[in-house]
């Protein structure tokens, strides 16, 4: 399923969508950036509550298709601008990470 379709289907709030037609395949949940770098697969949705500027670089380098900020966390200033410039998709949900993953599991 594409990033855009996933966001619409589950009512996530789009925060940065420079590449909405990208396919989402699989999912990784984590807040420690090195773990995410080392273990998330390309095209995964990455679910996290980490909201500082470094998530944009980690998402770009590990090549995930979408960052989902769980539990309604608010990204720090400049995160969205940086994400747009690095072609990183970010959306937000009020759901906790586990429930988010369970919900999207049948579509990715």
């Amino acid at each position: 399923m594409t990033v855009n379709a996933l966001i619409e289907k589950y009512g996530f709030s789009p925060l940065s969508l420079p590449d909405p037609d990208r396919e989402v395949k699989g999912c990784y949940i984590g807040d420690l950036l090195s773990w995410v770098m080392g273990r998330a697969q390309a095209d995964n949705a990455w679910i996290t509550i980490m909201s500082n500027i470094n998530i944009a670089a980690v998402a770009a380098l590990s090549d995930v298709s979408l960052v989902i900020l769980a539990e309604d966390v608010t990204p720090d200033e400049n995160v969205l601008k940086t994400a747009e410039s690095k072609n990183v998709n970010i959306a937000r949900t009020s759901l906790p990470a586990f429930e988010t993953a369970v919900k999207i599991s049948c579509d990715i």
Partner: protein
Amino acid sequence: MSEFLNFHFEVDGDNFVSAGQASVQMKKNMRQLGLSPEIIRKVSIAMYEGEINMVIHAHGGVADVNVYEDRIEIILDDKGPGIKDIDLAMQEGYSTANDHVRALGFGAGMGLPNMKRYTDDMKIETVVGEGTKITMSVNLS
């Protein structure tokens, strides 16, 4: 040795806002060179971990990436405090990062292990009080 391309980056110390810039730029360069996604991913991850280490521990440094016909070489050179115990530093989960750094999501003790995991060769030269030079290679074939 065959001809190669060199990319040189200055890495700002203690600047977590721009941390990763060199790696992100290098990723773009590799895409332009037409390298495979798997190679790009390996080099990007290894270089980012090294870059973050220089920001966290060494007040920055320099990164050089040399693209040869058969491999990509990443050289990270800093004038930081050096690594006291390399075996310990190579253990997953071991970190000397402070609480501020951990709050940003770093300091999981996965930096050096990830660098080793995603490269085909890694050499660490370090002198306590003087600095650290890490040379990594990713084979292209």
